[in-house]
Protein backbone atom coordinates (compact mmCIF):
# COMPACT_ATOMS: atom_id res chain seq x y z
CA UNK A 1 0.00 0.00 0.00
CA UNK A 2 1.41 3.32 -1.09
CA UNK A 3 0.62 6.35 1.05
CA UNK A 4 1.23 9.60 -0.78
CA UNK A 5 1.97 12.43 1.61
CA UNK A 6 2.07 10.99 5.12
CA UNK A 7 0.83 7.61 6.31
CA UNK A 8 -1.71 7.81 9.16
CA UNK A 9 0.95 6.78 11.68
CA UNK A 10 3.42 9.36 10.37
CA UNK A 11 0.74 12.02 10.36
CA UNK A 12 -0.23 11.24 13.95
CA UNK A 13 3.39 11.25 15.14
CA UNK A 14 4.11 14.55 13.43
CA UNK A 15 1.17 16.32 15.08
CA UNK A 16 2.01 14.76 18.46
CA UNK A 17 5.47 16.25 18.30
CA UNK A 18 4.48 19.56 16.75
CA UNK A 19 4.71 22.82 18.68
CA UNK A 20 1.02 23.57 19.20
CA UNK A 21 1.52 26.80 21.12
CA UNK A 22 -0.59 29.86 20.43
CA UNK A 23 2.00 32.12 18.86
CA UNK A 24 2.24 34.74 16.17
CA UNK A 25 2.45 32.86 12.88
CA UNK A 26 2.58 35.70 10.41
CA UNK A 27 5.04 35.17 7.59
CA UNK A 28 5.68 36.62 4.18
CA UNK A 29 4.47 34.48 1.33
CA UNK A 30 8.07 33.90 0.26
CA UNK A 31 9.03 32.59 3.69
CA UNK A 32 5.93 30.46 4.05
CA UNK A 33 6.49 28.65 0.76
CA UNK A 34 10.24 28.34 1.38
CA UNK A 35 9.59 26.83 4.80
CA UNK A 36 6.71 24.50 4.11
CA UNK A 37 6.70 23.43 0.45
CA UNK A 38 9.36 20.91 -0.54
CA UNK A 39 10.14 18.93 -3.67
CA UNK A 40 8.02 15.79 -3.80
CA UNK A 41 5.36 17.15 -1.46
CA UNK A 42 1.74 16.12 -1.58
CA UNK A 43 -0.12 19.44 -1.69
CA UNK A 44 -3.72 19.58 -0.49
CA UNK A 45 -5.37 22.31 -2.52
CA UNK A 46 -8.18 24.21 -0.78
CA UNK A 47 -11.20 25.81 -2.43
CA UNK A 48 -13.55 24.23 -4.93
CA UNK A 49 -13.31 24.53 -8.74
CA UNK A 50 -12.80 28.26 -9.17
CA UNK A 51 -14.04 29.28 -5.73
CA UNK A 52 -11.55 30.45 -3.12
CA UNK A 53 -8.65 28.75 -4.87
CA UNK A 54 -5.28 29.49 -3.20
CA UNK A 55 -4.03 31.32 -6.26
CA UNK A 56 -1.45 33.52 -4.55
CA UNK A 57 0.22 30.52 -2.90
CA UNK A 58 0.25 28.66 -6.24
CA UNK A 59 1.88 31.67 -7.92
CA UNK A 60 4.59 31.77 -5.26
CA UNK A 61 5.23 28.02 -5.58
CA UNK A 62 5.63 28.59 -9.32
CA UNK A 63 7.98 31.51 -8.78
CA UNK A 64 10.16 29.50 -6.41
CA UNK A 65 9.89 26.29 -8.46
CA UNK A 66 9.38 22.81 -6.99
CA UNK A 67 9.83 19.32 -8.42
CA UNK A 68 7.67 16.20 -8.43
CA UNK A 69 4.69 17.65 -6.64
CA UNK A 70 1.56 15.63 -5.94
CA UNK A 71 -1.71 17.56 -6.06
CA UNK A 72 -4.66 16.37 -3.99
CA UNK A 73 -8.05 18.02 -4.26
CA UNK A 74 -11.65 17.15 -5.00
CA UNK A 75 -12.55 19.69 -7.71
CA UNK A 76 -10.29 22.49 -8.82
CA UNK A 77 -9.74 24.66 -11.83
CA UNK A 78 -7.31 27.52 -11.77
CA UNK A 79 -4.69 26.26 -9.31
CA UNK A 80 -3.98 22.94 -11.05
CA UNK A 81 -4.06 24.73 -14.41
CA UNK A 82 -1.51 27.29 -13.20
CA UNK A 83 0.78 24.56 -11.85
CA UNK A 84 0.39 22.28 -14.87
CA UNK A 85 0.90 25.26 -17.16
CA UNK A 86 4.14 26.12 -15.36
CA UNK A 87 5.27 22.52 -15.80
CA UNK A 88 4.31 22.50 -19.47
CA UNK A 89 6.43 25.59 -20.01
CA UNK A 90 9.44 24.80 -17.79
CA UNK A 91 9.43 21.22 -16.51
CA UNK A 92 12.92 21.65 -15.04
CA UNK A 93 11.66 24.48 -12.86
CA UNK A 94 8.35 23.09 -11.68
CA UNK A 95 6.85 19.65 -12.07
CA UNK A 96 3.78 17.74 -10.95
CA UNK A 97 4.24 13.98 -10.86
CA UNK A 98 0.77 12.93 -9.77
CA UNK A 99 -2.75 14.20 -9.20
CA UNK A 100 -5.37 12.62 -6.91
CA UNK A 101 -8.67 14.29 -7.67
CA UNK A 102 -12.29 14.11 -8.78
CA UNK A 103 -12.61 16.95 -11.28
CA UNK A 104 -10.19 19.27 -13.00
CA UNK A 105 -11.89 21.90 -15.11
CA UNK A 106 -13.77 25.15 -15.09
CA UNK A 107 -17.49 24.20 -15.12
CA UNK A 108 -19.18 26.97 -17.14
CA UNK A 109 -15.89 27.83 -18.83
CA UNK A 110 -15.15 24.30 -20.01
CA UNK A 111 -12.60 21.56 -19.59
CA UNK A 112 -8.98 21.93 -18.51
CA UNK A 113 -6.66 22.04 -21.48
CA UNK A 114 -3.69 21.60 -19.20
CA UNK A 115 -5.14 18.37 -17.77
CA UNK A 116 -5.76 17.19 -21.32
CA UNK A 117 -2.25 18.11 -22.43
CA UNK A 118 -0.59 16.39 -19.48
CA UNK A 119 -2.64 13.20 -19.56
CA UNK A 120 -2.97 12.76 -23.29
CA UNK A 121 0.81 13.06 -23.48
CA UNK A 122 1.29 10.78 -20.47
CA UNK A 123 3.27 13.31 -18.49
CA UNK A 124 1.62 12.75 -15.10
CA UNK A 125 0.23 9.92 -13.01
CA UNK A 126 -3.50 10.19 -12.41
CA UNK A 127 -5.64 8.75 -9.66
CA UNK A 128 -9.36 9.36 -10.13
CA UNK A 129 -11.77 9.78 -7.23
CA UNK A 130 -15.18 11.39 -6.77
CA UNK A 131 -15.89 14.66 -5.01
CA UNK A 132 -17.20 12.78 -2.02
CA UNK A 133 -14.44 10.22 -1.88
CA UNK A 134 -11.70 12.88 -2.04
CA UNK A 135 -13.58 15.01 0.51
CA UNK A 136 -13.94 11.96 2.74
CA UNK A 137 -10.22 11.15 2.31
CA UNK A 138 -9.38 14.58 3.78
CA UNK A 139 -12.03 14.05 6.44
CA UNK A 140 -10.54 10.68 7.42
CA UNK A 141 -7.18 12.40 7.73
CA UNK A 142 -8.72 15.19 9.79
CA UNK A 143 -10.44 12.71 12.09
CA UNK A 144 -7.26 10.73 12.63
CA UNK A 145 -8.52 7.46 11.18
CA UNK A 146 -6.81 5.54 8.35
CA UNK A 147 -10.03 5.23 6.32
CA UNK A 148 -13.71 6.09 6.13
CA UNK A 149 -16.51 3.95 4.74
CA UNK A 150 -18.62 5.50 1.98
CA UNK A 151 -21.41 4.30 -0.25
CA UNK A 152 -20.11 5.81 -3.48
CA UNK A 153 -18.26 4.19 -6.30
CA UNK A 154 -19.26 0.58 -5.74
CA UNK A 155 -19.37 -1.16 -9.09
CA UNK A 156 -17.94 1.46 -11.44
CA UNK A 157 -14.48 1.95 -12.91
CA UNK A 158 -13.28 4.70 -10.56
CA UNK A 159 -12.48 2.37 -7.69
CA UNK A 160 -10.64 0.08 -10.07
CA UNK A 161 -8.11 2.90 -10.64
CA UNK A 162 -7.63 4.02 -7.09
CA UNK A 163 -6.65 2.71 -3.69
CA UNK A 164 -10.15 2.29 -2.29
CA UNK A 165 -11.17 -1.18 -1.14
CA UNK A 166 -14.57 -2.82 -1.06
CA UNK A 167 -15.37 -4.84 2.04
CA UNK A 168 -18.45 -6.49 3.42
CA UNK A 169 -19.75 -4.43 6.33
CA UNK A 170 -19.44 -6.62 9.42
CA UNK A 171 -22.68 -5.19 10.80
CA UNK A 172 -25.01 -4.98 7.80
CA UNK A 173 -23.31 -7.63 5.65
CA UNK A 174 -23.62 -5.29 2.66
CA UNK A 175 -20.72 -4.17 0.48
CA UNK A 176 -19.21 -0.82 1.34
CA UNK A 177 -16.23 1.13 0.05
CA UNK A 178 -13.32 2.06 2.29
CA UNK A 179 -11.31 5.06 1.16
CA UNK A 180 -7.85 5.71 2.62
CA UNK A 181 -7.08 8.93 4.48
CA UNK A 182 -5.20 11.68 2.67
CA UNK A 183 -2.58 13.48 4.77
CA UNK A 184 -0.95 16.10 2.53
CA UNK A 185 2.52 17.32 3.41
CA UNK A 186 1.18 20.81 3.08
CA UNK A 187 -2.33 22.20 2.86
CA UNK A 188 -2.68 25.46 0.96
CA UNK A 189 -5.77 27.49 1.75
CA UNK A 190 -7.20 30.93 1.21
CA UNK A 191 -9.75 32.19 3.74
CA UNK A 192 -11.50 35.49 4.29
CA UNK A 193 -10.28 36.13 7.83
CA UNK A 194 -7.65 34.82 10.22
CA UNK A 195 -5.98 36.02 13.41
CA UNK A 196 -2.22 36.03 13.94
CA UNK A 197 -2.36 32.64 15.66
CA UNK A 198 -4.01 30.95 12.70
CA UNK A 199 -7.64 30.78 13.84
CA UNK A 200 -9.52 31.02 10.53
CA UNK A 201 -13.01 32.16 9.68
CA UNK A 202 -14.43 30.95 6.40
CA UNK A 203 -17.48 32.74 5.01
CA UNK A 204 -20.05 30.80 3.02
CA UNK A 205 -19.31 27.21 2.13
CA UNK A 206 -16.29 25.70 3.84
CA UNK A 207 -15.68 23.29 0.90
CA UNK A 208 -13.15 20.90 2.47
CA UNK A 209 -10.77 23.55 3.77
CA UNK A 210 -11.16 22.65 7.46
CA UNK A 211 -10.65 18.97 6.65
CA UNK A 212 -7.54 19.68 4.57
CA UNK A 213 -6.16 21.83 7.40
CA UNK A 214 -6.70 19.18 10.05
CA UNK A 215 -5.39 16.38 7.81
CA UNK A 216 -2.20 18.07 6.61
CA UNK A 217 1.25 17.98 8.14
CA UNK A 218 1.67 21.73 7.68
CA UNK A 219 -0.76 24.41 6.58
CA UNK A 220 -0.23 27.74 4.84
CA UNK A 221 -3.19 30.11 5.02
CA UNK A 222 -3.60 33.34 3.12
CA UNK A 223 -6.39 35.63 4.29
CA UNK A 224 -8.05 38.61 2.74
CA UNK A 225 -8.05 40.23 6.14
CA UNK A 226 -6.15 39.72 9.37
CA UNK A 227 -8.56 40.20 12.26
CA UNK A 228 -7.99 40.88 15.94
CA UNK A 229 -7.87 37.79 18.11
CA UNK A 230 -10.54 39.54 20.19
CA UNK A 231 -13.01 39.07 17.36
CA UNK A 232 -12.32 35.33 17.33
CA UNK A 233 -12.64 35.12 21.11
CA UNK A 234 -15.97 36.92 21.06
CA UNK A 235 -17.57 34.21 18.90
CA UNK A 236 -15.49 31.05 18.72
CA UNK A 237 -18.31 29.06 17.11
CA UNK A 238 -17.47 30.97 13.91
CA UNK A 239 -13.90 29.69 13.84
CA UNK A 240 -13.60 27.20 10.97
CA UNK A 241 -10.01 26.10 11.64
CA UNK A 242 -8.33 26.18 15.07
CA UNK A 243 -4.98 27.92 15.41
CA UNK A 244 -2.95 24.81 16.23
CA UNK A 245 -3.60 23.34 12.79
CA UNK A 246 -2.04 26.33 11.01
CA UNK A 247 1.67 27.03 10.52
CA UNK A 248 1.83 30.21 8.46
CA UNK A 249 -0.62 33.11 8.21
CA UNK A 250 -0.10 35.48 5.31
CA UNK A 251 -2.34 38.52 5.07
CA UNK A 252 -2.96 38.84 1.37
CA UNK A 253 -5.93 40.76 0.02
CA UNK A 254 -7.11 39.21 -3.24
CA UNK A 255 -5.20 36.04 -2.40
CA UNK A 256 -7.70 33.94 -4.35
CA UNK A 257 -8.25 36.38 -7.22
CA UNK A 258 -9.46 35.92 -10.00
CA UNK A 259 -11.54 33.07 -8.48
CA UNK A 260 -14.58 33.95 -6.36
CA UNK A 261 -14.09 34.64 -2.66
CA UNK A 262 -17.39 34.59 -0.81
CA UNK A 263 -18.39 38.03 0.51
CA UNK A 264 -15.13 39.58 -0.78
CA UNK A 265 -15.24 39.47 -4.57
CA UNK A 266 -16.90 37.56 -7.37
CA UNK A 267 -14.98 35.98 -10.28
CA UNK A 268 -12.96 38.15 -12.59
CA UNK A 269 -14.37 36.35 -15.60
CA UNK A 270 -12.25 38.40 -17.98
CA UNK A 271 -8.98 37.33 -16.40
CA UNK A 272 -10.12 33.74 -15.84
CA UNK A 273 -11.27 33.33 -19.40
CA UNK A 274 -8.17 35.06 -20.74
CA UNK A 275 -5.91 32.56 -18.99
CA UNK A 276 -8.21 29.69 -19.96
CA UNK A 277 -7.97 30.79 -23.59
CA UNK A 278 -4.19 30.77 -23.41
CA UNK A 279 -4.16 27.21 -22.07
CA UNK A 280 -6.53 26.15 -24.85
CA UNK A 281 -4.20 27.75 -27.37
CA UNK A 282 -1.20 26.04 -25.76
CA UNK A 283 -2.77 22.63 -26.21
CA UNK A 284 -3.22 23.47 -29.86
CA UNK A 285 0.41 24.44 -30.24
CA UNK A 286 0.73 28.11 -29.24
CA UNK A 287 3.36 27.98 -26.51
CA UNK A 288 4.42 31.61 -26.64
CA UNK A 289 1.17 33.26 -25.59
CA UNK A 290 0.99 31.20 -22.42
CA UNK A 291 4.69 31.79 -21.73
CA UNK A 292 4.12 35.50 -22.10
CA UNK A 293 1.32 35.32 -19.54
CA UNK A 294 3.58 33.58 -17.01
CA UNK A 295 6.34 36.08 -17.65
CA UNK A 296 4.01 39.00 -17.19
CA UNK A 297 1.77 37.87 -14.34
CA UNK A 298 3.82 35.38 -12.34
CA UNK A 299 7.56 35.39 -13.00
CA UNK A 300 7.56 39.09 -13.80
CA UNK A 301 6.05 40.14 -10.49
CA UNK A 302 7.49 39.82 -7.01
CA UNK A 303 4.26 39.09 -5.23
CA UNK A 304 0.48 39.11 -5.29
CA UNK A 305 0.30 42.89 -4.77
CA UNK A 306 2.15 43.35 -8.04
CA UNK A 307 -0.05 40.76 -9.75
CA UNK A 308 -3.18 42.57 -8.61
CA UNK A 309 -1.63 45.87 -9.68
CA UNK A 310 -1.67 44.54 -13.24
CA UNK A 311 -5.42 43.91 -13.17
CA UNK A 312 -7.38 46.89 -14.50
CA UNK A 313 -9.08 48.61 -11.59
CA UNK A 314 -12.50 48.40 -13.19
CA UNK A 315 -12.19 44.59 -13.25
CA UNK A 316 -11.29 44.50 -9.55
CA UNK A 317 -14.06 46.93 -8.75
CA UNK A 318 -16.67 45.00 -10.73
CA UNK A 319 -15.63 41.72 -9.11
CA UNK A 320 -16.10 43.28 -5.69
CA UNK A 321 -19.35 45.00 -6.56
CA UNK A 322 -20.99 41.92 -8.06
CA UNK A 323 -20.31 39.80 -4.97
CA UNK A 324 -23.11 39.02 -2.48
CA UNK A 325 -25.54 41.37 -4.17
CA UNK A 326 -28.89 40.58 -5.68
CA UNK A 327 -29.46 40.62 -9.41
CA UNK A 328 -31.42 43.85 -9.36
CA UNK A 329 -28.53 45.75 -7.76
CA UNK A 330 -26.08 44.12 -10.17
CA UNK A 331 -27.96 45.37 -13.23
CA UNK A 332 -27.00 48.94 -12.36
CA UNK A 333 -23.31 48.11 -12.69
CA UNK A 334 -21.38 48.43 -15.91
CA UNK A 335 -19.41 45.27 -16.69
CA UNK A 336 -15.83 45.90 -17.73
CA UNK A 337 -14.94 44.99 -21.31
CA UNK A 338 -12.18 42.49 -21.99
Amino acid at each position, binding site marked *: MLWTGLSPDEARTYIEQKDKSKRDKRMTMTEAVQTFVKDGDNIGVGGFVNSRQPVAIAHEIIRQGRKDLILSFQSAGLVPDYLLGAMALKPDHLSVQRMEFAYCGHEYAGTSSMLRYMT*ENEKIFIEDW*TNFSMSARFKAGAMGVPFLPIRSGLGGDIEK*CNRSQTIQCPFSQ*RNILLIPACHPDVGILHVQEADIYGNCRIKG*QTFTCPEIAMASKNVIVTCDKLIDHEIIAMDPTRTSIPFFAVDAVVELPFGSYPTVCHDIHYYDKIHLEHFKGLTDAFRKGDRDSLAAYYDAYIYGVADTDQFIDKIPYNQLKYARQTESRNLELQTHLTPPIA
Partner: protein
Amino acid sequence: MTDYATDYSPGEMIVTAGARQLENNKVIFAGTGLPMVGITLAQLTNGPGIIPVFEAGAVGPTLDRGLPLSVGDSRTTSRANFIQGLNSAFELTQRGFIDIGFIGGAEIDPYGNLNSTMIGNFPENYMKPVVRLPGSGGAGDMSCSCTYTILIVQHELRRFVEKLQYCTSIGHMDGSKDARKKAGLQGKGPKWVITTKALMGFDDETKRMKILATMPGETVESVQAVTGFDLMVDADVYEFAPPSKEEIRLIRDVIDPTQIFCKR
Protein backbone atom coordinates in the same frame (compact mmCIF):
# COMPACT_ATOMS: atom_id res chain seq x y z
CA MET B 1 -54.92 26.05 -23.63
CA THR B 2 -51.15 26.39 -23.36
CA ASP B 3 -49.55 28.83 -25.73
CA TYR B 4 -46.52 26.94 -27.12
CA ALA B 5 -43.35 28.57 -28.32
CA THR B 6 -42.27 27.87 -31.86
CA ASP B 7 -38.80 29.30 -31.62
CA TYR B 8 -36.63 27.56 -29.04
CA SER B 9 -33.19 26.00 -28.88
CA PRO B 10 -32.27 22.39 -28.04
CA GLY B 11 -30.96 23.56 -24.67
CA GLU B 12 -34.24 25.27 -23.93
CA MET B 13 -36.15 22.10 -24.81
CA ILE B 14 -33.99 20.06 -22.41
CA VAL B 15 -34.35 22.57 -19.63
CA THR B 16 -38.11 22.65 -20.06
CA ALA B 17 -38.36 18.86 -20.08
CA GLY B 18 -36.18 18.62 -17.01
CA ALA B 19 -38.24 21.20 -15.15
CA ARG B 20 -41.52 19.47 -15.96
CA GLN B 21 -40.29 16.13 -14.63
CA LEU B 22 -39.62 17.61 -11.21
CA GLU B 23 -42.11 17.10 -8.45
CA ASN B 24 -42.85 19.95 -6.09
CA ASN B 25 -41.31 19.98 -2.57
CA LYS B 26 -38.54 17.58 -3.49
CA VAL B 27 -34.90 18.05 -2.52
CA ILE B 28 -32.78 18.23 -5.64
CA PHE B 29 -29.04 18.01 -6.02
CA ALA B 30 -28.23 20.71 -8.53
CA GLY B 31 -25.33 20.36 -10.94
CA THR B 32 -23.79 23.20 -12.93
CA GLY B 33 -25.36 24.22 -16.19
CA LEU B 34 -28.66 23.09 -17.65
CA PRO B 35 -29.83 21.30 -14.45
CA MET B 36 -29.51 24.56 -12.53
CA VAL B 37 -31.59 26.33 -15.19
CA GLY B 38 -34.16 23.51 -15.13
CA ILE B 39 -34.51 23.56 -11.36
CA THR B 40 -34.95 27.32 -11.35
CA LEU B 41 -37.56 27.04 -14.10
CA ALA B 42 -39.41 24.41 -12.08
CA GLN B 43 -39.34 26.66 -9.02
CA LEU B 44 -40.97 29.39 -11.10
CA THR B 45 -43.62 27.04 -12.53
CA ASN B 46 -44.69 23.64 -11.23
CA GLY B 47 -42.33 23.37 -8.26
CA PRO B 48 -42.22 26.48 -6.08
CA GLY B 49 -41.36 24.32 -3.08
CA ILE B 50 -38.36 22.63 -4.67
CA ILE B 51 -35.30 22.66 -2.42
CA PRO B 52 -32.01 22.83 -4.31
CA VAL B 53 -28.86 21.48 -2.70
CA PHE B 54 -25.41 22.34 -4.07
CA GLU B 55 -22.54 19.99 -3.53
CA ALA B 56 -20.19 22.66 -2.21
CA GLY B 57 -22.47 22.89 0.79
CA ALA B 58 -25.53 25.14 0.37
CA VAL B 59 -29.02 23.76 1.17
CA GLY B 60 -32.19 25.44 -0.04
CA PRO B 61 -30.95 28.81 -1.34
CA THR B 62 -32.88 31.29 -3.46
CA LEU B 63 -30.95 32.07 -6.62
CA ASP B 64 -31.63 35.80 -6.43
CA ARG B 65 -28.07 36.85 -7.27
CA GLY B 66 -28.17 35.40 -10.75
CA LEU B 67 -27.37 31.98 -12.12
CA PRO B 68 -24.30 30.49 -10.40
CA LEU B 69 -21.41 29.69 -12.72
CA SER B 70 -20.37 26.85 -10.45
CA VAL B 71 -21.87 24.68 -7.76
CA GLY B 72 -19.28 26.27 -5.47
CA ASP B 73 -20.18 29.81 -6.48
CA SER B 74 -21.13 32.27 -3.72
CA ARG B 75 -24.40 32.75 -5.60
CA THR B 76 -25.53 29.29 -4.48
CA THR B 77 -25.63 30.50 -0.88
CA SER B 78 -28.07 33.39 -1.03
CA ARG B 79 -30.81 33.07 1.55
CA ALA B 80 -29.98 29.40 2.06
CA ASN B 81 -31.26 27.43 5.06
CA PHE B 82 -28.04 25.67 5.90
CA ILE B 83 -24.47 25.88 4.64
CA GLN B 84 -21.53 23.67 5.42
CA GLY B 85 -19.17 22.00 2.94
CA LEU B 86 -18.78 19.11 0.52
CA ASN B 87 -18.72 16.33 3.08
CA SER B 88 -21.94 17.63 4.56
CA ALA B 89 -23.70 17.79 1.18
CA PHE B 90 -22.66 14.27 0.19
CA GLU B 91 -23.47 12.87 3.60
CA LEU B 92 -26.97 14.33 3.29
CA THR B 93 -27.17 12.46 0.01
CA GLN B 94 -25.86 9.24 1.51
CA ARG B 95 -28.32 9.54 4.39
CA GLY B 96 -31.29 9.76 1.99
CA PHE B 97 -32.14 13.47 2.15
CA ILE B 98 -31.68 14.08 -1.57
CA ASP B 99 -34.62 12.94 -3.66
CA ILE B 100 -33.31 13.66 -7.13
CA GLY B 101 -29.94 14.29 -8.75
CA PHE B 102 -29.21 15.58 -12.25
CA ILE B 103 -26.20 14.02 -13.93
CA GLY B 104 -24.56 14.38 -17.30
CA GLY B 105 -21.80 12.57 -19.12
CA ALA B 106 -19.95 12.24 -22.38
CA GLU B 107 -21.13 8.68 -22.98
CA ILE B 108 -24.15 6.70 -21.80
CA ASP B 109 -24.99 3.00 -22.11
CA PRO B 110 -28.38 1.23 -22.26
CA TYR B 111 -28.46 0.89 -18.45
CA GLY B 112 -27.85 4.55 -17.74
CA ASN B 113 -24.22 4.15 -16.77
CA LEU B 114 -22.22 7.27 -17.69
CA ASN B 115 -18.67 8.14 -18.64
CA SER B 116 -17.20 11.54 -17.82
CA THR B 117 -13.61 10.46 -17.30
CA MET B 118 -11.87 9.47 -20.52
CA ILE B 119 -12.13 8.44 -24.14
CA GLY B 120 -9.69 5.66 -24.96
CA ASN B 121 -9.01 2.09 -23.96
CA PHE B 122 -9.51 1.39 -20.33
CA PRO B 123 -7.67 0.15 -18.38
CA GLU B 124 -4.75 -0.15 -20.85
CA ASN B 125 -4.57 3.53 -21.73
CA TYR B 126 -5.89 5.06 -18.55
CA MET B 127 -2.67 7.04 -18.16
CA LYS B 128 -2.65 8.07 -21.82
CA PRO B 129 -6.22 8.58 -22.94
CA VAL B 130 -7.23 9.78 -26.38
CA VAL B 131 -9.29 12.48 -24.73
CA ARG B 132 -9.15 13.17 -21.05
CA LEU B 133 -12.42 14.50 -19.67
CA PRO B 134 -12.66 16.50 -16.44
CA GLY B 135 -13.57 13.50 -14.26
CA SER B 136 -16.39 12.50 -11.99
CA GLY B 137 -16.77 15.56 -9.83
CA GLY B 138 -19.83 14.86 -7.72
CA ALA B 139 -21.66 12.92 -10.44
CA GLY B 140 -20.25 9.57 -9.37
CA ASP B 141 -21.57 10.19 -5.87
CA MET B 142 -24.99 11.47 -6.93
CA SER B 143 -25.42 8.43 -9.17
CA CYS B 144 -24.87 6.18 -6.17
CA SER B 145 -26.83 7.87 -3.42
CA CYS B 146 -29.60 10.19 -4.64
CA THR B 147 -32.99 8.50 -4.34
CA TYR B 148 -33.10 8.63 -8.10
CA THR B 149 -31.33 10.48 -10.89
CA ILE B 150 -32.23 12.23 -14.11
CA LEU B 151 -29.59 12.02 -16.82
CA ILE B 152 -28.99 14.70 -19.42
CA VAL B 153 -26.82 13.72 -22.36
CA GLN B 154 -26.34 15.11 -25.86
CA HIS B 155 -28.11 12.69 -28.16
CA GLU B 156 -25.42 11.60 -30.61
CA LEU B 157 -24.59 8.15 -31.98
CA ARG B 158 -21.06 8.21 -30.54
CA ARG B 159 -22.39 9.05 -27.06
CA PHE B 160 -25.18 6.45 -26.82
CA VAL B 161 -23.08 3.30 -26.81
CA GLU B 162 -23.65 -0.33 -25.88
CA LYS B 163 -20.45 -0.34 -23.86
CA LEU B 164 -18.83 2.63 -22.14
CA GLN B 165 -15.11 3.24 -22.45
CA TYR B 166 -15.11 4.00 -18.71
CA CYS B 167 -17.90 3.89 -16.16
CA THR B 168 -17.79 7.03 -14.03
CA SER B 169 -21.38 7.30 -12.78
CA ILE B 170 -23.15 4.09 -11.96
CA GLY B 171 -26.60 3.52 -13.43
CA HIS B 172 -28.37 0.16 -13.46
CA MET B 173 -24.98 -1.54 -13.89
CA ASP B 174 -25.45 -4.68 -16.05
CA GLY B 175 -29.22 -4.55 -15.63
CA SER B 176 -29.33 -7.72 -13.54
CA LYS B 177 -31.83 -7.98 -10.73
CA ASP B 178 -30.87 -5.97 -7.62
CA ALA B 179 -27.47 -5.26 -9.17
CA ARG B 180 -27.19 -1.92 -7.39
CA LYS B 181 -28.25 -3.30 -4.04
CA LYS B 182 -25.82 -6.19 -4.32
CA ALA B 183 -23.02 -3.78 -5.13
CA GLY B 184 -23.76 -1.92 -1.89
CA LEU B 185 -25.46 1.11 -3.40
CA GLN B 186 -28.46 2.85 -1.90
CA GLY B 187 -30.23 5.03 -4.45
CA LYS B 188 -32.57 3.58 -7.04
CA GLY B 189 -30.47 4.80 -9.95
CA PRO B 190 -31.51 6.57 -13.15
CA LYS B 191 -35.21 7.17 -13.67
CA TRP B 192 -35.17 9.33 -16.76
CA VAL B 193 -32.84 10.31 -19.56
CA ILE B 194 -33.59 13.65 -21.14
CA THR B 195 -32.07 14.57 -24.48
CA THR B 196 -32.88 16.92 -27.32
CA LYS B 197 -34.51 13.95 -29.06
CA ALA B 198 -36.49 12.09 -26.42
CA LEU B 199 -37.58 11.50 -22.88
CA MET B 200 -36.56 8.00 -21.92
CA GLY B 201 -37.01 5.75 -18.92
CA PHE B 202 -35.79 2.27 -18.04
CA ASP B 203 -37.62 -1.02 -18.42
CA ASP B 204 -38.68 -2.45 -15.07
CA GLU B 205 -37.38 -5.92 -15.90
CA THR B 206 -34.32 -5.52 -18.07
CA LYS B 207 -33.36 -2.02 -16.89
CA ARG B 208 -32.60 -1.12 -20.48
CA MET B 209 -33.37 2.33 -21.82
CA LYS B 210 -36.87 2.84 -23.20
CA ILE B 211 -38.38 5.71 -25.14
CA LEU B 212 -41.27 7.24 -23.23
CA ALA B 213 -41.79 10.31 -25.37
CA THR B 214 -40.25 11.89 -28.44
CA MET B 215 -39.35 15.54 -28.48
CA PRO B 216 -41.28 17.74 -30.94
CA GLY B 217 -40.27 16.95 -34.51
CA GLU B 218 -38.72 13.61 -33.60
CA THR B 219 -39.99 10.07 -34.12
CA VAL B 220 -39.06 6.76 -32.51
CA GLU B 221 -37.09 6.05 -35.68
CA SER B 222 -35.22 9.36 -35.67
CA VAL B 223 -34.31 8.81 -32.04
CA GLN B 224 -33.14 5.25 -32.66
CA ALA B 225 -31.10 6.48 -35.62
CA VAL B 226 -28.83 8.52 -33.34
CA THR B 227 -28.60 5.83 -30.65
CA GLY B 228 -25.81 3.25 -30.73
CA PHE B 229 -27.90 0.51 -29.11
CA ASP B 230 -31.44 -0.81 -29.44
CA LEU B 231 -33.91 1.32 -27.53
CA MET B 232 -37.04 -0.21 -26.11
CA VAL B 233 -40.21 1.70 -26.85
CA ASP B 234 -42.94 2.24 -24.31
CA ALA B 235 -46.40 1.01 -25.25
CA ASP B 236 -47.79 4.48 -24.67
CA VAL B 237 -45.06 6.51 -26.32
CA TYR B 238 -46.21 10.09 -26.91
CA GLU B 239 -44.91 13.37 -28.24
CA PHE B 240 -43.53 15.63 -25.58
CA ALA B 241 -45.11 19.08 -25.58
CA PRO B 242 -42.80 21.88 -26.70
CA PRO B 243 -41.85 24.68 -24.31
CA SER B 244 -44.60 27.15 -23.67
CA LYS B 245 -44.07 30.80 -24.43
CA GLU B 246 -44.07 31.43 -20.70
CA GLU B 247 -41.37 28.81 -20.09
CA ILE B 248 -39.21 30.36 -22.80
CA ARG B 249 -39.81 33.85 -21.40
CA LEU B 250 -38.72 32.70 -17.95
CA ILE B 251 -35.58 31.04 -19.29
CA ARG B 252 -34.60 33.98 -21.47
CA ASP B 253 -35.66 36.96 -19.41
CA VAL B 254 -35.47 35.78 -15.84
CA ILE B 255 -33.20 32.79 -15.41
CA ASP B 256 -30.42 32.94 -17.97
CA PRO B 257 -30.61 36.31 -19.72
CA THR B 258 -26.92 36.31 -20.64
CA GLN B 259 -27.08 32.74 -22.07
CA ILE B 260 -24.44 31.37 -19.76
CA PHE B 261 -25.79 27.85 -20.01
CA CYS B 262 -28.83 28.02 -22.24
CA LYS B 263 -27.82 29.13 -25.70
CA ARG B 264 -30.50 30.19 -28.14
